[in-house]
């Protein structure tokens, strides 16, 4: 792929990240009850990590994280957290769990969510330890968010498989 095309794709990932962060910070926060589980930044960053490349995922994650960080009342170290999640999930997808199956993609999504929550707990504890007053980040229940992230990953996997040749067997690609 030519460098200009690579930069275009990174710019597109950044735009997706900005939009997802903006929606997460200012739109879905108004949703009541279980609708509040709807978030786009984390599933989006995870999907780009799993189905595309890490550099694009990092661009999207940092863009989404910065928007959320400056607009939300909470201070959740969001850009750093999302970037760390992308790196960890990419590492896991290369070492342990393949992204070339529906189950594998869903599992990677849920693992990403768990890593995100773990970092959030650690960051909240560290912030509290420093003694500075702050508003902690709020989330829907973990099971609901896991279901949402899993569903997003499954749908995106199916769409990706349907509209690209990446997951087709080798022989059909040659034919």
């Amino acid at each position, binding site marked *: 792929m030519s460098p200009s095309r690579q930069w275009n794709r990174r710019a597109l990932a950044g735009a997706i990240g900005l939009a997802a962060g903006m929606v997460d910070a200012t739109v879905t926060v*108004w949703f009541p009850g279980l609708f509040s589980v709807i978030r786009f930044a984390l599933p989006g960053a995870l999907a780009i990590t799993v189905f595309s*490349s890490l550099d694009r995922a990092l661009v999207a994650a940092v863009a989404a994280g910065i928007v959320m960080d400056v607009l939300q*009342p909470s201070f959740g170290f969001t850009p750093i957290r999302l970037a760390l999640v992308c*790196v*960890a999930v990419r590492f896991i997808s290369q070492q342990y769990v393949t992204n070339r199956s529906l189950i594998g993609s869903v599992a990677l999504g849920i693992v990403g969510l768990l890593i995100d929550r773990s970092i959030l707990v650690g960051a909240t504890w560290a912030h509290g330890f420093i003694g500075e007053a702050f508003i*902690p*980040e*709020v989330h829907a229940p973990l099971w609901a968010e896991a279901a949402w992230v899993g569903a997003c990953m499954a749908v995106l996997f199916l769409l990706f498989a349907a509209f690209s040749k990446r997951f087709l067997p080798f022989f059909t690609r040659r034919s």
Partner: protein
Amino acid sequence: MSIKPRTVLLIAGGLAGLLLLMLAGVIRPVRERVRFVLLPVARVTASMGAGIGRALHIDPGAEAAQETVRELEARLRSISVDYVRLRALEEENRSLRAQAQFIADTGFRTLGARVISRAIRYETAAIVIDRGARDGIEVGHPVVTDDGILLGKVFSLGERTATVVLVSDERSRVAASVSGTNRLSGVVEGQGNGTARFTLVPQSEPLAQDDVVVTAGTEDRVPANLVIGWVNNVESRPTDPFKSAALELLAAMDRADLVSVILPAGNR
């Protein structure tokens, strides 16, 4: 792009450095500039989000809602009686003020703001408004709904935004009194999940169900008589020096999208 353990460590190290810069406040000016760029878009999307949120708001327990309606109707009847009495007193007060050529000047003004983001769940209840230090807002200024009911107080400030901790947040404390007493009676403490308690009320203070609780006016930046809520049930033990009461907050914490910040009149 293939990723090796060493790359992971490098990226993690870079991010840890960024984290330290964030904690040290070095990137605060950058955050303010990004916020300045994003704020116009955030106003529009927040307005859309509030509209969608209202459309999605389906009350889960219709039966519980019916019960609440019955309870509120009974309370309304009781308050109506009080209202009639108060109207009579108000008329009397007005004529007395006119006689004394009394000029009422509260010394405060309001500044309208839009809620652009929020975090309301469990023990946390906070919102971000699109006004900040540049508009004369300071930490501790009260924020009210359009009908003047106290929502919360400013917790932290940016140049163009402010974070407001709502009365129901566990971090929230407001000096309060029972309406009409004009003296500090206790403290309204947030309990999370949209609830609050009126605590540290001396046993000698009269406190009954349906009493209206207002701000005491003893805090530096909070005027007196901003309505907070009404007393639900009083908990009092003869052995305790203080009594407390569960409060029913009057402001719709989860639906406020337009609010007002109360500022000193000279603060422009």
